[in-house]
Protein backbone atom coordinates (compact mmCIF):
# COMPACT_ATOMS: atom_id res chain seq x y z
CA UNK A 1 0.00 0.00 0.00
CA UNK A 2 2.85 2.36 0.81
CA UNK A 3 4.15 1.88 -2.74
CA UNK A 4 0.82 3.05 -4.18
CA UNK A 5 0.75 6.01 -1.78
CA UNK A 6 4.25 6.87 -2.93
CA UNK A 7 3.26 6.61 -6.60
CA UNK A 8 0.22 8.83 -5.95
CA UNK A 9 2.55 11.46 -4.47
CA UNK A 10 4.89 11.13 -7.46
CA UNK A 11 1.96 11.54 -9.85
CA UNK A 12 1.31 14.84 -8.07
CA UNK A 13 -1.74 16.41 -6.45
CA UNK A 14 -2.92 18.18 -9.63
CA UNK A 15 -3.12 14.84 -11.48
CA UNK A 16 -5.00 13.27 -8.58
CA UNK A 17 -7.36 16.23 -8.18
CA UNK A 18 -8.22 16.62 -11.88
CA UNK A 19 -11.11 14.10 -11.84
CA UNK A 20 -12.72 15.40 -8.60
CA UNK A 21 -12.39 18.97 -9.92
CA UNK A 22 -14.09 18.04 -13.19
CA UNK A 23 -17.01 16.40 -11.36
CA UNK A 24 -17.33 19.45 -9.13
CA UNK A 25 -17.46 21.60 -12.28
CA UNK A 26 -20.24 19.35 -13.65
CA UNK A 27 -22.18 19.67 -10.39
CA UNK A 28 -21.76 23.46 -10.39
CA UNK A 29 -22.93 23.68 -14.00
CA UNK A 30 -25.93 21.43 -13.28
CA UNK A 31 -26.84 23.54 -10.23
CA UNK A 32 -26.56 26.74 -12.31
CA UNK A 33 -28.71 25.19 -15.04
CA UNK A 34 -31.36 24.16 -12.54
CA UNK A 35 -31.21 27.60 -10.92
CA UNK A 36 -31.81 29.29 -14.25
CA UNK A 37 -34.81 27.16 -15.04
CA UNK A 38 -33.36 24.45 -17.31
CA UNK A 39 -35.58 21.39 -17.70
CA UNK A 40 -34.77 18.28 -15.59
CA UNK A 41 -33.65 16.27 -18.69
CA UNK A 42 -31.16 19.05 -19.53
CA UNK A 43 -29.82 19.07 -15.97
CA UNK A 44 -29.55 15.26 -16.02
CA UNK A 45 -27.70 15.51 -19.33
CA UNK A 46 -25.14 17.85 -17.77
CA UNK A 47 -24.63 15.43 -14.87
CA UNK A 48 -24.17 12.51 -17.26
CA UNK A 49 -21.66 14.58 -19.25
CA UNK A 50 -19.69 14.90 -16.02
CA UNK A 51 -18.84 11.18 -16.06
CA UNK A 52 -18.81 10.63 -19.82
CA UNK A 53 -17.00 13.79 -20.98
CA UNK A 54 -15.26 15.57 -18.12
CA UNK A 55 -13.74 12.67 -16.17
CA UNK A 56 -12.08 11.19 -19.31
CA UNK A 57 -10.74 14.65 -20.22
CA UNK A 58 -9.33 15.07 -16.72
CA UNK A 59 -7.80 11.58 -16.70
CA UNK A 60 -6.21 12.12 -20.11
CA UNK A 61 -4.65 15.46 -19.13
CA UNK A 62 -3.45 13.91 -15.87
CA UNK A 63 -1.88 11.03 -17.83
CA UNK A 64 0.11 13.53 -19.91
CA UNK A 65 1.35 15.12 -16.69
CA UNK A 66 2.37 11.77 -15.23
CA UNK A 67 4.33 10.86 -18.37
CA UNK A 68 5.91 14.23 -18.99
CA UNK A 69 6.69 15.71 -15.61
CA UNK A 70 9.07 13.36 -13.85
CA UNK A 71 12.05 15.21 -12.42
CA UNK A 72 13.85 11.99 -11.48
CA UNK A 73 13.57 10.16 -14.79
CA UNK A 74 17.31 9.65 -15.15
CA UNK A 75 17.36 8.10 -11.68
CA UNK A 76 14.38 5.91 -12.52
CA UNK A 77 16.12 4.63 -15.64
CA UNK A 78 19.16 3.68 -13.58
CA UNK A 79 17.09 1.38 -11.34
CA UNK A 80 16.53 -2.32 -12.09
CA UNK A 81 12.73 -1.83 -12.00
CA UNK A 82 11.23 -1.31 -15.46
CA UNK A 83 10.22 2.30 -16.03
CA UNK A 84 7.04 1.32 -17.86
CA UNK A 85 5.93 -0.60 -14.76
CA UNK A 86 6.54 2.44 -12.56
CA UNK A 87 4.73 4.65 -15.04
CA UNK A 88 1.91 2.10 -15.23
CA UNK A 89 1.41 2.24 -11.46
CA UNK A 90 1.18 6.05 -11.53
CA UNK A 91 -1.23 5.99 -14.45
CA UNK A 92 -3.17 3.30 -12.58
CA UNK A 93 -3.52 5.63 -9.61
CA UNK A 94 -4.82 8.47 -11.81
CA UNK A 95 -7.20 6.21 -13.75
CA UNK A 96 -8.27 4.48 -10.52
CA UNK A 97 -9.27 7.79 -8.93
CA UNK A 98 -11.28 8.69 -12.02
CA UNK A 99 -12.93 5.25 -12.11
CA UNK A 100 -13.78 5.19 -8.40
CA UNK A 101 -15.29 8.65 -8.55
CA UNK A 102 -17.26 7.80 -11.67
CA UNK A 103 -18.73 4.71 -10.00
CA UNK A 104 -19.70 6.72 -6.93
CA UNK A 105 -21.09 9.59 -9.01
CA UNK A 106 -23.11 7.22 -11.21
CA UNK A 107 -24.48 5.47 -8.12
CA UNK A 108 -25.45 8.82 -6.61
CA UNK A 109 -27.22 9.79 -9.83
CA UNK A 110 -29.16 6.50 -9.79
CA UNK A 111 -30.18 6.96 -6.17
CA UNK A 112 -31.45 10.48 -6.84
CA UNK A 113 -33.27 9.47 -10.04
CA UNK A 114 -31.02 11.62 -12.22
CA UNK A 115 -29.39 8.79 -14.18
CA UNK A 116 -30.24 8.82 -17.89
CA UNK A 117 -27.70 6.21 -18.99
CA UNK A 118 -28.22 2.47 -19.54
CA UNK A 119 -29.91 0.36 -16.89
CA UNK A 120 -27.49 -2.53 -16.35
CA UNK A 121 -24.51 -2.06 -14.06
CA UNK A 122 -21.98 -3.28 -16.64
CA UNK A 123 -23.32 -0.99 -19.35
CA UNK A 124 -23.33 1.88 -16.87
CA UNK A 125 -19.63 1.38 -16.31
CA UNK A 126 -19.04 1.58 -20.06
CA UNK A 127 -20.52 5.09 -20.09
CA UNK A 128 -17.31 6.45 -18.56
CA UNK A 129 -14.85 3.53 -18.94
CA UNK A 130 -14.74 3.45 -22.76
CA UNK A 131 -14.10 7.19 -23.36
CA UNK A 132 -11.69 7.21 -20.42
CA UNK A 133 -9.71 4.35 -21.92
CA UNK A 134 -9.81 5.83 -25.43
CA UNK A 135 -8.85 9.40 -24.52
CA UNK A 136 -6.27 8.42 -21.89
CA UNK A 137 -4.72 5.94 -24.31
CA UNK A 138 -4.48 8.65 -26.97
CA UNK A 139 -2.92 11.07 -24.46
CA UNK A 140 -0.38 8.48 -23.37
CA UNK A 141 0.59 7.60 -26.93
CA UNK A 142 1.00 11.23 -28.05
CA UNK A 143 2.94 12.08 -24.88
CA UNK A 144 5.35 9.19 -25.47
CA UNK A 145 5.64 9.80 -29.21
CA UNK A 146 5.88 13.59 -29.11
CA UNK A 147 7.73 13.99 -25.79
CA UNK A 148 5.97 17.32 -25.41
CA UNK A 149 3.36 18.33 -22.86
CA UNK A 150 2.07 21.01 -25.24
CA UNK A 151 1.53 18.65 -28.17
CA UNK A 152 -0.09 15.97 -26.04
CA UNK A 153 -2.42 18.30 -24.12
CA UNK A 154 -3.33 20.23 -27.29
CA UNK A 155 -4.16 16.97 -29.09
CA UNK A 156 -6.37 15.78 -26.25
CA UNK A 157 -8.10 19.17 -25.91
CA UNK A 158 -8.70 19.49 -29.65
CA UNK A 159 -10.03 15.95 -30.05
CA UNK A 160 -12.36 16.51 -27.09
CA UNK A 161 -13.47 19.95 -28.31
CA UNK A 162 -14.00 18.85 -31.93
CA UNK A 163 -16.08 15.89 -30.77
CA UNK A 164 -18.24 18.28 -28.75
CA UNK A 165 -18.52 20.81 -31.60
CA UNK A 166 -19.30 18.34 -34.35
CA UNK A 167 -21.31 15.95 -32.18
CA UNK A 168 -24.29 15.78 -34.53
CA UNK A 169 -22.20 15.08 -37.63
CA UNK A 170 -20.04 12.50 -35.83
CA UNK A 171 -23.04 10.69 -34.39
CA UNK A 172 -24.78 10.62 -37.79
CA UNK A 173 -21.81 9.33 -39.81
CA UNK A 174 -21.58 5.57 -40.28
CA UNK A 175 -17.78 5.59 -40.01
CA UNK A 176 -17.45 8.27 -37.34
CA UNK A 177 -20.18 6.96 -35.01
CA UNK A 178 -18.08 4.15 -33.45
CA UNK A 179 -15.39 6.70 -32.53
CA UNK A 180 -17.74 9.27 -30.99
CA UNK A 181 -16.78 9.79 -27.35
CA UNK A 182 -20.04 11.27 -26.03
CA UNK A 183 -22.62 8.89 -27.44
CA UNK A 184 -24.61 8.41 -24.20
CA UNK A 185 -24.94 12.06 -23.20
CA UNK A 186 -25.43 13.50 -26.71
CA UNK A 187 -27.43 10.73 -28.44
CA UNK A 188 -28.53 8.29 -25.75
CA UNK A 189 -28.38 4.50 -25.60
CA UNK A 190 -29.35 4.15 -29.24
CA UNK A 191 -28.50 1.72 -32.05
CA UNK A 192 -24.77 1.07 -32.22
CA UNK A 193 -24.14 2.14 -28.64
CA UNK A 194 -22.52 -1.17 -27.72
CA UNK A 195 -20.33 -1.13 -30.83
CA UNK A 196 -19.31 2.46 -30.06
CA UNK A 197 -18.25 1.53 -26.52
CA UNK A 198 -16.38 -1.55 -27.71
CA UNK A 199 -14.51 0.35 -30.44
CA UNK A 200 -13.51 3.15 -28.06
CA UNK A 201 -12.23 0.66 -25.51
CA UNK A 202 -10.37 -1.29 -28.20
CA UNK A 203 -8.76 1.93 -29.48
CA UNK A 204 -7.70 2.73 -25.93
CA UNK A 205 -6.12 -0.70 -25.49
CA UNK A 206 -4.38 -0.36 -28.87
CA UNK A 207 -2.99 3.08 -27.99
CA UNK A 208 -1.79 1.95 -24.57
CA UNK A 209 -0.16 -1.19 -26.01
CA UNK A 210 1.65 0.88 -28.65
CA UNK A 211 2.82 3.34 -25.99
CA UNK A 212 4.09 0.47 -23.83
CA UNK A 213 5.97 -0.96 -26.81
CA UNK A 214 7.58 2.44 -27.37
CA UNK A 215 8.45 2.60 -23.68
CA UNK A 216 10.66 -0.46 -24.08
CA UNK A 217 13.18 2.26 -24.87
CA UNK A 218 12.30 4.67 -22.03
CA UNK A 219 15.28 6.91 -22.77
CA UNK A 220 13.08 8.30 -25.57
CA UNK A 221 11.38 10.42 -22.92
CA UNK A 222 14.48 12.17 -21.64
CA UNK A 223 14.34 15.32 -23.75
CA UNK A 224 10.72 16.38 -23.50
CA UNK A 225 11.48 19.47 -21.36
CA UNK A 226 13.20 21.32 -24.19
CA UNK A 227 10.68 20.47 -26.92
Amino acid at each position, binding site marked *: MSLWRYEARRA*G*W*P*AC*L*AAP*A*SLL*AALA*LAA*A*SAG*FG*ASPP*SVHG*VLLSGVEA*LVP*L*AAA*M*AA*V*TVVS*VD*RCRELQLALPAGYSVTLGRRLGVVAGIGAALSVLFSAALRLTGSWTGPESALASALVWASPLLGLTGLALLVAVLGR*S*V*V*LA*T*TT*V*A*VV*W*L*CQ*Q*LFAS*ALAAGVWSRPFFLFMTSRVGVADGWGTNRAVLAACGVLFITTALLLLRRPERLLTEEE*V
Partner: protein
Amino acid sequence: MRSRFAAVCRYEFRMQVRKRSLWVSTVGLAVLIAVAQGDRGPRHLPAGTSAAEVMGSWALLFSMLLPIGFGMVLADRLVRDHRIGAASLLASLPTRPGALVAGKYAGSVAATAVPGLLVLLVTAAGEFAHRGDLTLFGWAVAAFAVVLLPGLAFVAAFALVCPLVVSAPLFRVLFAGYWFWGNMLGPAYLPSLTGTLLTPIGDYPASWLMGEKALYAGDSGWLSFLRPEPGGGAALLSVVLLAVLASLPLAFAGPLIARRTSS
Protein backbone atom coordinates in the same frame (compact mmCIF):
# COMPACT_ATOMS: atom_id res chain seq x y z
CA MET B 1 11.81 50.94 -16.10
CA ARG B 2 10.77 51.01 -19.75
CA SER B 3 14.04 49.49 -20.93
CA ARG B 4 13.74 46.69 -18.34
CA PHE B 5 10.22 45.95 -19.51
CA ALA B 6 11.45 45.94 -23.10
CA ALA B 7 14.35 43.64 -22.21
CA VAL B 8 12.07 41.12 -20.46
CA CYS B 9 9.60 41.32 -23.32
CA ARG B 10 12.38 40.73 -25.85
CA TYR B 11 13.86 37.67 -24.17
CA GLU B 12 10.45 36.15 -23.54
CA PHE B 13 9.52 36.70 -27.17
CA ARG B 14 12.72 35.10 -28.39
CA MET B 15 12.31 32.09 -26.12
CA GLN B 16 8.69 31.50 -27.06
CA VAL B 17 8.95 32.10 -30.78
CA ARG B 18 11.70 29.46 -31.03
CA LYS B 19 9.58 26.87 -29.24
CA ARG B 20 9.00 24.06 -31.70
CA SER B 21 5.78 22.90 -30.07
CA LEU B 22 4.22 26.35 -30.62
CA TRP B 23 4.74 26.07 -34.39
CA VAL B 24 3.87 22.39 -34.64
CA SER B 25 0.61 22.82 -32.72
CA THR B 26 -0.36 25.98 -34.65
CA VAL B 27 0.34 24.50 -38.06
CA GLY B 28 -1.35 21.22 -37.11
CA LEU B 29 -4.48 22.98 -35.90
CA ALA B 30 -4.57 25.34 -38.90
CA VAL B 31 -4.34 22.43 -41.34
CA LEU B 32 -7.02 20.52 -39.41
CA ILE B 33 -9.33 23.55 -39.53
CA ALA B 34 -8.70 24.17 -43.23
CA VAL B 35 -9.37 20.54 -44.16
CA ALA B 36 -12.25 19.69 -41.83
CA GLN B 37 -14.31 22.89 -42.03
CA GLY B 38 -17.20 21.33 -43.97
CA ASP B 39 -19.42 22.81 -46.66
CA ARG B 40 -20.39 25.87 -44.62
CA GLY B 41 -16.77 26.93 -44.02
CA PRO B 42 -15.17 30.06 -45.53
CA ARG B 43 -13.41 27.96 -48.18
CA HIS B 44 -16.79 27.49 -49.83
CA LEU B 45 -17.94 31.13 -49.78
CA PRO B 46 -19.19 32.11 -53.25
CA ALA B 47 -17.09 34.20 -55.62
CA GLY B 48 -17.78 37.90 -55.17
CA THR B 49 -18.02 37.66 -51.37
CA SER B 50 -16.40 40.72 -49.80
CA ALA B 51 -12.80 40.37 -48.60
CA ALA B 52 -13.85 41.48 -45.11
CA GLU B 53 -16.39 38.67 -44.87
CA VAL B 54 -13.97 36.06 -46.22
CA MET B 55 -11.18 36.94 -43.82
CA GLY B 56 -13.58 37.53 -40.92
CA SER B 57 -14.94 34.00 -41.43
CA TRP B 58 -11.45 32.53 -41.55
CA ALA B 59 -10.36 34.46 -38.44
CA LEU B 60 -13.40 33.22 -36.51
CA LEU B 61 -12.77 29.65 -37.62
CA PHE B 62 -9.13 29.83 -36.52
CA SER B 63 -10.03 31.48 -33.23
CA MET B 64 -12.18 28.46 -32.34
CA LEU B 65 -9.18 26.18 -31.99
CA LEU B 66 -5.86 28.06 -32.22
CA PRO B 67 -6.16 29.64 -28.74
CA ILE B 68 -6.38 26.12 -27.29
CA GLY B 69 -2.82 25.48 -28.47
CA PHE B 70 -1.67 28.92 -27.29
CA GLY B 71 -3.20 28.35 -23.85
CA MET B 72 -1.48 24.98 -23.53
CA VAL B 73 1.86 26.51 -24.59
CA LEU B 74 1.65 29.38 -22.10
CA ALA B 75 0.22 27.40 -19.18
CA ASP B 76 3.59 26.56 -17.69
CA ARG B 77 5.53 29.77 -18.45
CA LEU B 78 5.56 31.25 -14.93
CA VAL B 79 5.29 27.89 -13.13
CA ARG B 80 8.29 26.63 -15.06
CA ASP B 81 10.48 29.45 -13.74
CA HIS B 82 9.93 28.04 -10.26
CA ARG B 83 10.34 24.42 -11.33
CA ILE B 84 13.74 24.91 -12.90
CA GLY B 85 14.94 27.36 -10.21
CA ALA B 86 15.04 30.46 -12.43
CA ALA B 87 12.47 32.32 -10.30
CA SER B 88 14.97 33.07 -7.50
CA LEU B 89 17.46 34.32 -10.03
CA LEU B 90 14.86 36.58 -11.66
CA ALA B 91 13.81 37.85 -8.22
CA SER B 92 17.39 38.98 -7.55
CA LEU B 93 17.33 41.29 -10.59
CA PRO B 94 16.57 45.00 -10.14
CA THR B 95 13.40 44.53 -12.25
CA ARG B 96 10.23 44.76 -10.15
CA PRO B 97 7.81 41.78 -10.25
CA GLY B 98 5.18 43.92 -11.99
CA ALA B 99 7.52 44.84 -14.84
CA LEU B 100 8.71 41.25 -15.05
CA VAL B 101 5.17 39.90 -15.39
CA ALA B 102 4.16 42.63 -17.84
CA GLY B 103 7.24 41.97 -19.97
CA LYS B 104 6.69 38.22 -19.94
CA TYR B 105 3.03 38.72 -20.81
CA ALA B 106 3.75 41.10 -23.69
CA GLY B 107 6.54 38.87 -25.01
CA SER B 108 4.36 35.76 -24.79
CA VAL B 109 1.43 37.42 -26.54
CA ALA B 110 3.72 38.74 -29.28
CA ALA B 111 5.37 35.33 -29.77
CA THR B 112 2.09 33.44 -30.01
CA ALA B 113 0.64 36.18 -32.22
CA VAL B 114 3.33 35.64 -34.86
CA PRO B 115 2.16 32.15 -35.94
CA GLY B 116 -1.47 33.29 -35.66
CA LEU B 117 -0.88 36.23 -37.99
CA LEU B 118 1.17 34.12 -40.40
CA VAL B 119 -1.61 31.54 -40.60
CA LEU B 120 -4.10 34.24 -41.58
CA LEU B 121 -1.72 35.77 -44.14
CA VAL B 122 -1.07 32.36 -45.71
CA THR B 123 -4.83 31.84 -45.84
CA ALA B 124 -5.23 35.25 -47.48
CA ALA B 125 -2.64 34.20 -50.07
CA GLY B 126 -4.63 31.02 -50.75
CA GLU B 127 -7.85 33.00 -51.13
CA PHE B 128 -6.06 35.55 -53.34
CA ALA B 129 -5.09 32.76 -55.74
CA HIS B 130 -8.72 32.23 -56.77
CA ARG B 131 -10.41 35.50 -55.80
CA GLY B 132 -7.68 37.84 -57.06
CA ASP B 133 -8.49 40.55 -54.52
CA LEU B 134 -5.42 42.27 -53.01
CA THR B 135 -7.45 43.75 -50.15
CA LEU B 136 -7.67 40.24 -48.70
CA PHE B 137 -4.25 40.79 -47.16
CA GLY B 138 -5.32 44.04 -45.49
CA TRP B 139 -8.48 42.42 -44.15
CA ALA B 140 -6.42 39.46 -42.93
CA VAL B 141 -4.41 41.83 -40.73
CA ALA B 142 -7.59 43.63 -39.61
CA ALA B 143 -9.36 40.35 -38.83
CA PHE B 144 -6.32 39.18 -36.89
CA ALA B 145 -6.26 42.43 -34.88
CA VAL B 146 -9.94 42.43 -33.90
CA VAL B 147 -10.88 38.73 -33.82
CA LEU B 148 -7.83 36.64 -32.97
CA LEU B 149 -5.55 39.00 -31.03
CA PRO B 150 -7.98 40.11 -28.26
CA GLY B 151 -8.84 36.47 -27.58
CA LEU B 152 -5.18 35.54 -27.56
CA ALA B 153 -4.37 38.38 -25.12
CA PHE B 154 -7.24 37.22 -22.89
CA VAL B 155 -6.19 33.57 -22.96
CA ALA B 156 -2.52 34.46 -22.40
CA ALA B 157 -3.27 36.45 -19.23
CA PHE B 158 -5.20 33.61 -17.63
CA ALA B 159 -2.85 30.91 -18.93
CA LEU B 160 0.13 32.67 -17.38
CA VAL B 161 -1.37 33.43 -13.98
CA CYS B 162 -3.98 30.77 -13.17
CA PRO B 163 -1.46 27.86 -13.10
CA LEU B 164 0.29 29.68 -10.24
CA VAL B 165 -2.84 28.95 -8.18
CA VAL B 166 -4.33 25.74 -9.58
CA SER B 167 -1.20 24.20 -11.24
CA ALA B 168 -0.66 23.80 -14.97
CA PRO B 169 -2.27 20.34 -15.41
CA LEU B 170 -5.44 21.35 -13.61
CA PHE B 171 -5.57 24.62 -15.53
CA ARG B 172 -5.36 22.73 -18.84
CA VAL B 173 -8.35 20.54 -17.93
CA LEU B 174 -10.42 23.51 -16.80
CA PHE B 175 -9.35 25.60 -19.79
CA ALA B 176 -10.49 22.98 -22.33
CA GLY B 177 -13.85 22.69 -20.55
CA TYR B 178 -14.21 26.47 -20.26
CA TRP B 179 -13.40 27.02 -23.94
CA PHE B 180 -16.34 24.88 -24.98
CA TRP B 181 -18.72 26.15 -22.29
CA GLY B 182 -17.83 29.83 -22.58
CA ASN B 183 -17.52 30.12 -26.36
CA MET B 184 -19.40 27.48 -28.26
CA LEU B 185 -22.10 25.91 -26.07
CA GLY B 186 -25.37 27.45 -27.25
CA PRO B 187 -26.86 29.77 -24.58
CA ALA B 188 -30.30 28.27 -25.18
CA TYR B 189 -29.05 24.88 -23.96
CA LEU B 190 -27.36 25.92 -20.71
CA PRO B 191 -26.45 29.18 -18.97
CA SER B 192 -23.11 30.09 -20.51
CA LEU B 193 -21.00 33.06 -21.56
CA THR B 194 -21.39 32.08 -25.22
CA GLY B 195 -22.75 34.94 -27.30
CA THR B 196 -21.83 37.65 -24.78
CA LEU B 197 -19.31 40.47 -25.16
CA LEU B 198 -16.95 38.37 -23.01
CA THR B 199 -16.41 35.56 -25.53
CA PRO B 200 -12.70 35.51 -26.42
CA ILE B 201 -13.50 33.58 -29.60
CA GLY B 202 -14.27 36.96 -31.22
CA ASP B 203 -17.93 36.40 -32.02
CA TYR B 204 -18.82 40.13 -31.97
CA PRO B 205 -15.84 41.43 -34.01
CA ALA B 206 -16.33 38.59 -36.52
CA SER B 207 -20.03 39.44 -36.80
CA TRP B 208 -19.09 43.06 -37.52
CA LEU B 209 -16.63 42.00 -40.25
CA MET B 210 -19.04 39.52 -41.81
CA GLY B 211 -22.03 41.86 -41.67
CA GLU B 212 -24.20 39.17 -40.09
CA LYS B 213 -24.31 37.14 -36.89
CA ALA B 214 -21.26 34.89 -36.93
CA LEU B 215 -22.19 32.38 -34.22
CA TYR B 216 -24.25 33.28 -31.17
CA ALA B 217 -23.44 37.01 -30.72
CA GLY B 218 -26.41 38.72 -29.11
CA ASP B 219 -28.51 35.55 -28.74
CA SER B 220 -30.82 35.78 -25.75
CA GLY B 221 -29.62 34.03 -22.63
CA TRP B 222 -27.91 34.40 -19.31
CA LEU B 223 -26.49 37.91 -18.53
CA SER B 224 -28.68 39.64 -21.10
CA PHE B 225 -27.02 43.04 -20.49
CA LEU B 226 -23.84 41.59 -22.04
CA ARG B 227 -25.69 40.59 -25.23
CA PRO B 228 -26.26 43.74 -27.33
CA GLU B 229 -27.03 43.56 -31.03
CA PRO B 230 -23.84 42.86 -33.03
CA GLY B 231 -22.29 45.88 -34.76
CA GLY B 232 -19.20 48.07 -34.84
CA GLY B 233 -19.78 49.58 -31.38
CA ALA B 234 -20.49 46.21 -29.78
CA ALA B 235 -17.35 44.76 -31.42
CA LEU B 236 -15.23 47.57 -30.02
CA LEU B 237 -16.82 47.18 -26.59
CA SER B 238 -16.10 43.44 -26.68
CA VAL B 239 -12.41 44.05 -27.47
CA VAL B 240 -12.13 46.65 -24.67
CA LEU B 241 -13.88 44.41 -22.14
CA LEU B 242 -11.62 41.47 -22.99
CA ALA B 243 -8.55 43.71 -22.52
CA VAL B 244 -9.85 44.91 -19.15
CA LEU B 245 -10.61 41.35 -18.04
CA ALA B 246 -7.16 40.21 -19.16
CA SER B 247 -5.56 42.81 -16.90
CA LEU B 248 -7.25 41.38 -13.79
CA PRO B 249 -5.19 38.18 -13.42
CA LEU B 250 -2.04 40.10 -14.34
CA ALA B 251 -2.63 42.43 -11.38
CA PHE B 252 -2.39 39.43 -9.06
CA ALA B 253 0.61 37.84 -10.76
CA GLY B 254 3.29 39.91 -8.99
CA PRO B 255 2.16 39.07 -5.43
CA LEU B 256 1.59 35.41 -6.38
CA ILE B 257 5.09 35.09 -7.81
CA ALA B 258 6.61 36.86 -4.81
CA ARG B 259 4.80 34.51 -2.43
CA ARG B 260 5.91 31.40 -4.31
CA THR B 261 9.50 32.62 -4.54
CA SER B 262 9.71 33.38 -0.83
CA SER B 263 8.14 30.05 0.24
